[in-house]
């Protein structure tokens, strides 16, 4: 199929076809989530669940790929579905317009092969890690703050976020720095590359280690936790 021709040298035909059978849940459809959904969809992941309670507002336009001047006020999760209908109609997108919380988390995540953490606060991320472990689902964590970002791949039992958010820190430096256009795209790209490897069961993962990204000095550190 022409659509996936350029995937074929890095993925086998069989792997390409397998991607259609996977179901991935993207929790958060903002800066990270928008790019993640775009890339998962173009790869040909068959089923994407997009979760976000919010609608687009003007301050999202600097970085959130799903936002534009014509869809301000529209729900992000619904815009993800609309976008994918024009990019890759083969992909089924389920939109869930709801706050992701400990009451609905299990119901939302159940049945997925993989979960992408594209949330915007630390407390919800730690809760997401707990539920993914309970449901035995791999989790790809990504977070951004200004020039900085981080990615790690968490398999059930790893609990890597407990190391990354030590001292139960509540407030990330993004509250002071904001987020520009480029760190969401960068971190989302690395998250999707990890997602693809977990789904296909090959390649080296950022497991039990975090890739800490500093685009201000272009320093990229892998910090290992064992």
């Amino acid at each position, binding site marked *: 199929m022409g659509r996936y021709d350029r995937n074929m040298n890095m993925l086998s035909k069989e792997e390409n076809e397998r991607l259609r059978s996977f179901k991935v849940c993207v929790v958060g459809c903002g800066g990270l989530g928008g790019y993640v959904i775009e890339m998962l969809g173009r790869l040909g992941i068959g089923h994407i669940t997009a979760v976000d309670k919010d609608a687009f507002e003007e301050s999202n336009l600097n970085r959130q790929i799903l936002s534009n001047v014509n869809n301000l006020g529209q729900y992000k999760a619904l815009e993800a579905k609309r976008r994918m209908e024009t990019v890759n109609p083969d992909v089924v997108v389920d939109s869930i317009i709801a706050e992701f919380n400990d009451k609905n988390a299990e119901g939302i995540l159940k049945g997925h092969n993989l979960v992408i953490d594209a*949330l*915007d606060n630390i407390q919800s991320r730690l809760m997401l890690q707990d539920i993914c472990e309970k449901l035995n689902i791999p989790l790809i964590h990504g977070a951004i703050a200004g020039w900085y970002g981080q990615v790690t791949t968490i398999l059930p039992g790893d609990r890597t976020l407990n*190391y990354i958010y*030590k001292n139960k*820190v*509540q407030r990330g430096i993004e509250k002071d720095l904001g*987020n520009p256009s480029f760190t*969401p795209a960068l971190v989302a790209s690395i998250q999707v590359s990890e997602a693809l490897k977990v789904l296909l069961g090959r390649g080296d993962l950022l497991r039990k280690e975090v890739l800490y990204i500093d685009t201000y000095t272009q320093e990229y550190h892998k910090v*290992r936790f064992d």
Partner: protein
Amino acid sequence: MIKVKLFATFREGRQKEVIFNYFEGINGRYILDKLDIKEEDIAIYLVNGLDGKIDNPLNDGDTISLFPPVGGG
């Protein structure tokens, strides 16, 4: 000698690396106090590249790495 490596916003108003003279009993809490960094602002605290505890005494020659929390999406 204790080498302290600072990352991301911890470098603002400071150097990338700060050296402390070693003395018996020196620990992360002493260093944080001298650097005017609050414990609750630290997401990752490493001693020689491994997850460490702020109150544990350090050894001469140790390297501390401090990372702030990144949580946005």
